[in-house]
């Protein structure tokens, strides 16, 4: 296999405030090949969006900064690029769909204007052509009557429509890497299916790689080749979708999978959850960050950081229970050695 398209190593992102430093991302590792789709799942607030924003080098600074780590993209270390060089990368090579479609669209420009701008930033075409293209884009993402809608302002759009506009902007650049932060949360399932289809097509056509941040595990199963699971700022487990689904190794992953609402859960049944709450990111935890909520936690879990272990080809996990020789397995909600 050739070099990966994107290789994130030991990424640390901090937000400083007068009182403390928030380690929003604290050791994220993953790599992504050409035309591959990776899903990032994990606790809300675990640093998924921050990781994505860090790849774009758009962490608001101050107070935030990339404190450590490497983001290798096509042999360039994005962390080390100058602002100007980074601008060449943004939009052109890496595009991002932001999580919050309402606040991510500029309220004072029409959506058409914003799409046209994206197109014209990277393509040398006339305004008129760009507009035609923008209308096409809107149609592609399923906005009805795009010729009319293109001259409307974001606040006149519904949540899902705004999200689709964001998608249209990101896709209009034909990027090599598309980072989609919760791209379909506000979409109904039929439109969602359509959008995901669209992303796949794009991937086929342009060999695009995709980072898909989502809470909808269904989307992950459908779209992704690989998954990383994040908890409290770090990757706790990563592997192919099949590995993660069939053979999750980290107790947090188990909790996550079990909390899923599936069609076979009856209304009367209480949903499974992970009790407790995640650690305060301002306070470095000596041991495993999940230890306070882990039903299996032993002494060592509270004291030492677990190492990253490759349990099978491409399947990595960082948990004291998982060693090369001694592995826990999930079976019907309990663990066996």
């Amino acid at each position, binding site marked *: 296999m050739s070099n990966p398209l994107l290789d994130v190593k030991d990424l640390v992102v901090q937000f400083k405030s007068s009182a403390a430093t928030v380690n929003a991302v604290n050791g994220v590792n993953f790599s992504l090949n050409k035309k591959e789709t990776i899903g990032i799942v994990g606790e809300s607030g675990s640093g998924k969006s921050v990781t994505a*924003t860090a790849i774009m080098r758009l962490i608001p600074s101050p107070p935030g900064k990339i404190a450590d780590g490497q983001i290798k993209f096509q042999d360039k270390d994005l962390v080390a690029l100058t602002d100007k060089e980074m601008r060449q990368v943004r939009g052109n090579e890496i595009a991002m769909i932001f999580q919050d479609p309402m606040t991510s669209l500029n309220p004072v420009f029409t959506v058409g204007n914003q799409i046209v701008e994206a197109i014209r930033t990277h393509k040398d075409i006339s305004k008129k052509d760009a507009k035609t293209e923008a209308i096409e884009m809107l149609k592609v993402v399923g906005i009805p009557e795009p010729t009319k809608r293109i001259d409307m302002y974001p606040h006149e759009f519904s949540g899902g429509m705004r999200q689709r506009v964001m998608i249209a*902007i990101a896709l209009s650049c034909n990027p090599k890497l598309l980072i989609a932060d919760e791209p379909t949360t506000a979409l109904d399932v039929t439109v969602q299916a359509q959008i995901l289809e669209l992303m796949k097509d794009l991937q086929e056509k342009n060999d695009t790689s995709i980072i898909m941040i989502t809470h909808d595990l269904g989307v992950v199963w459908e779209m992704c080749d690989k998954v990383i699971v994040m908890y409290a700022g770090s990757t706790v487990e990563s592997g192919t979708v099949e590995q993660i689904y069939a053979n999750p190794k980290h107790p947090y992953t188990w909790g996550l999978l079990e909390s899923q609402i599936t069609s076979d859960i009856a209304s009367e049944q209480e949903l499974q959850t992970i009790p407790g709450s995640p650690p305060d990111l301002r306070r470095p935890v000596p041991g495993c960050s999940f230890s306070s909520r882990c039903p299996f936690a032993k002494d060592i879990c509270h004291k030492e950081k677990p190492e990253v272990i490759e349990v099978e080809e491409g399947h990595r996990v960082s948990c004291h229970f998982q060693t090369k020789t001694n592995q826990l397995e999930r079976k019907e909600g309990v663990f066996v050695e």
Partner: protein
Amino acid sequence: MGKYIFRRFLDLIPTLFVVATIVFIITRLIPGNPAAVMLGPTASVEDIEKLTAQLGLNDSYIVQFLNYLKGVIQGDFGMSLSYNQPVTTLILERFPNTLILAISALSIALLIGIPAGMIAASKQNSFVDYIVMLVSLVGVSMPIFWLGVMLVLYFSVNLGWLPATGMGSLDDGIVPFIKHLILPSIALATIPMATFARITRSSMLEVVSKEYIKTARAKGVREFIVITKHALKNALTPILTVLGMQVSGLLGGAVLTETIFSWPGMGRLIVDAIEKRDFVVVQGTVLFIAIIFVLINLLVDILYKVVNPRVNYESKGGEK
């Protein structure tokens, strides 16, 4: 919007009525008999009495007021007591001069102030930022009479580059005309310029941390465009407000600058009229200025809406 604009035009009527009434009352309230004031120190008792009668100032206030209103409704602002000319003529003579000076000063203020504010904001807490701040504050702390005289001392008296006073006439060619315009415009521009710079900076700072700025950057848009297009348009509301105020202020006449540079504008007309107790001119000019202000603010309100499509003048907060 069309309906709104129409309604705003209708607003002019009560506004003007109220303004007219208040000016009338005020001019009668303040001490000073126009006849005595106009005739100067050496006037004798008889002279004053005679002129008072001639000017119709012996009529009862009600009669005076009704006559005045009648005139205004017919578009007649009356005859100046001291100039012996229709107020409309006086205003039309001076207003273009004021307009020229105002446009020129505002252009300077905008062209320097806004970019300076933008640069300061994009380099917050840097050396450039501090310089912009310091210069702006020097700008507002410097009284115009001081600055004006300094400019003249340096550029006219010492260097002899520019004329010290007067407006010049276009008949003498465009170059002398512009030369006359430079110093008063600079003197007049300092405070607006400083205000623009500071307001722009603060407003930009509010905006640059917004998510959509991130989006623009993520698109790969050049930083220059991010700042000048995406951030600026969102930051424009307070700038427009200030612009509207400055335009109003300048069109109402810049007394100090006009006096120092002998610029024949509205400001001096008004102040002369007040000092001379030329009530008719005072009433006329105040009404005229009120009309201008209402129109300028209408324009500003339209611009608010152009800049920010969410602006809604009819609804209460939080209602759609």
